[in-house]
């Protein structure tokens, strides 16, 4: 406004003396080598009867009494500063022939009453502050998943460092065993799992299902979440062995691996990566069909006062392999194969839907479609998540499958 009573000199002094130093935010200065960067977390339950002593850090037995639940064992993979090679050929374990694994990361575990409790006990033994900003992988053992992961979801939602793009897995057996394996391909083991999932999504072998999507699905009224189910295989490899499907926060069932492409077929997720054998009718021969693209149209309606879902799903694909010569591939045979595939796929789809209906776990989100499109019915008869779970068990689903084989590869017949 008007030339000041308050001289500019004071203003300048304020800027230099107060504003600039404070704006640097030096309270939170934390050098990168002074933090313990957590790359992966594994969660197991502690079996009853095993002699484990919980350090009394967050609790004492009487004051600050902890929840009286099953104890959890949390295993973390911490990046060793300087141990992670920044480029090809640089240090690391690669030259010695051992996968980077044990050198680039440090695997530590601790026991606690809750996730944060266990992590806090862990922090007690690790000098630098644990930092979760680079967390990529969360592995939950099946036993924990079946008991419910509410506490886990709460913790990871609440922690501002954790991102929603992480992958969460349910694993067969113990998470700690997976945390200790070190795949040879990647010098930083958790990154191997990350690239495995990224590739699987790109190739259409697994639906995109990062943590944020799982959370959204579990929260939604007419949908349940699912997670990839990992199991440890020989030679330090891991395999996705199906989808663990949930009701609210509890794992209630497991699909077969072949049912992953089935799920993606129903949902019309492209690209298609699944491969199946087809026994060609009339001729005693087999071919291997590989999907390329999928599309599905899911419609909802109310018939006689009951919700109804009808699915039109189509898959385009190619023939990858023929079992033996002696069967010419011509247009007629192609159509025979298509019909047979449609028949088989229909069976598979029905079986998958039946399996989830048995547990009341609507991983397809049919309920969301009813809620969005048939809102009159939903408002009057359903309204809550629980009601939908009950309704889903008897939901009427119609499926129409269309398979198109477009190409047969470089061989002519």
């Amino acid at each position, binding site marked *: 406004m008007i030339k000041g009573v308050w001289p500019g000199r004071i203003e300048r002094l304020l800027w230099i003396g107060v504003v600039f130093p404070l704006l640097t935010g030096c309270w939170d200065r934390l050098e990168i080598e002074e933090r313990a960067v957590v790359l992966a977390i594994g969660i197991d339950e502690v079996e009853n009867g095993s002699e484990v002593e919980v350090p009394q850090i967050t609790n004492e037995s009487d004051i600050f009494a902890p929840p009286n639940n099953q104890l959890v064992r949390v295993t973390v993979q911490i990046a060793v500063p300087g141990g992670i090679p920044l480029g090809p050929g640089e240090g690391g374990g690669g030259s010695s022939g051992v996968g980077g694994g044990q050198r680039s990361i440090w695997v530590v575990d601790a026991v606690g009453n809750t996730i944060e409790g266990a992590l806090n006990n862990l922090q007690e033994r690790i000098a630098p502050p644990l930092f979760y900003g680079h967390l990529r992988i969360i592995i939950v053992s099946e036993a924990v998943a079946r008991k419910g992961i509410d506490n886990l979801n709460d913790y990871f939602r609440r922690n501002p460092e954790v991102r929603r793009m992480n992958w969460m897995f349910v694993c067969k057996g113990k998470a700690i065993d997976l945390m200790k394996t070190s795949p040879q391909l990647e010098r930083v083991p958790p990154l191997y799992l990350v690239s495995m999932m990224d590739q699987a999504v790109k190739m259409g072998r697994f639906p995109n299902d990062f943590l944020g999507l799982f959370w959204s699905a579990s929260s939604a009224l007419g949908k349940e979440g699912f997670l990839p189910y990992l199991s440890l295989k020989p030679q330090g490899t891991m395999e996705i062995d199906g989808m663990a499907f949930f009701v609210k926060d509890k794992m209630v069932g497991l699909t077969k691996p072949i049912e992953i492409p089935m799920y993606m077929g129903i949902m019309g997720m492209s690209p298609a990566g699944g491969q199946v054998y087809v026994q060609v009718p009339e001729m005693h021969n087999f071919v291997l069909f590989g999907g390329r693209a999928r599309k599905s149209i899911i419609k909802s309606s109310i018939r006689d006062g009951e919700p109804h879902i009808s699915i039109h799903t189509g898959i385009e694909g190619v023939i990858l392999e023929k079992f033996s010569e002696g069967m010419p591939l011509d247009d007629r045979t192609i159509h025979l194969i298509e019909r047979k595939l449609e028949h088989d796929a229909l069976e598979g789809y029905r079986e998958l839907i039946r399996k989830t209906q048995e547990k009341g776990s609507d991983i397809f989100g049919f309920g969301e479609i009813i809620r969005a499109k048939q809102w009159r019915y*939903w408002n009057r008869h359903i309204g809550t998540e629980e009601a939908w779970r009950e309704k889903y068990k008897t939901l009427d689903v119609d499926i129409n499958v269309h398979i198109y084989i477009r190409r047969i590869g470089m061989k002519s017949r």
Partner: protein
Amino acid sequence: MEYPRQITVIQAAAIITSTIIGVGVLALPYFAAGHAGTASPLITLAAILLSFFGLWFISVLGMRFRTQSIVEYSEAILGRWLAFAGNLLIILFFAALTSLAAREFGEVVITAVLKRTPLEVVVAIMLLIAMISCRKDITTFAYIHHFYLPIIVFPAIVIVALSLRNAKAINLLPIWGNANSWSNLLGGVLVVAALFQAAFIYTMVIPYMRRPERALVASSAGLAIAGGLYLSIVIAVIGVFGAEETKKLQWPTLELAKTTTLPGNVLERLDAAFLALWVTAVFSTLFSTYYFTIFAIGKLFRMRDRNMLAPFLMPLLFAFAMVPTNVLHMYQIIGQVGRLGLYLTIGYPLFLLIVAKIRRIRGNSDDQGRVARPN
């Protein structure tokens, strides 16, 4: 001393937009989803309309009294003492708005980014920067807003556009929500409209506009940009997370930025970029409300020099910012203050307009000299 009318229509619109876009953008989808579920975009739209009425009254009054702000023409309309009470309330409200915005800013920063920095420092530094900027004249005020506007709006549009890739239409249906009661929807509209009310400071800008007769055009454009951005943020958040998940998040917009990646793995999370633009947005809002508080006090007490007011006010604003005992208490207070504010920012101008029409009071609209009346 006389002040030339220097603020252009575009600058006026920029002032409105960057004043509206502020600290509330982070929690906005949470408020909306909590009240209306999938009807959140709908109630946001309704809230924009409601705020438009407030701005419309202000603009019409401003065009009627071209050389005066609400502090002055309310005296002409209602008489000195009645207007004094109204103006005092407005001043208190904007002081509270400034404090609470600084506090909310502090809470977010401490929770999400600078965990070990004392809250007091974050709040004080924001108020301090606003205070120092408040010593500039209104032309500079307009320039600052004009300058920052693109920095706030364009990155926000990019983030929203990128995040829409993950959105699903089904999350936004039905557009009127599932089994919402009218009172719930209305409550939601009021809560969201409360996020727009800083635009009220427009009353201070009109007397300095080069063409005050275009005040309504400028305010509509400003509100349309800010409202459009808010609406698209609500659509993106609900579309990506779904209404139920949004209800579980304190600051869903920040969460959205966290989930959004730049294509080609350039940046894996955009929350840092988003926070940077958000700090700018908070500053411009804080600056506006702080400036208006001082401006109104100056006009009310007919002070010749307002320069000393800003530093004197700061300890009070800071003290009020420290009143809420925790983050939930703060949101409770923000809710209450916001609801009361709607009476002041929408109801009061309407009342003034009606009385002015009835009493046939006009300002000196034969303003040929294009000069605002000095203090």
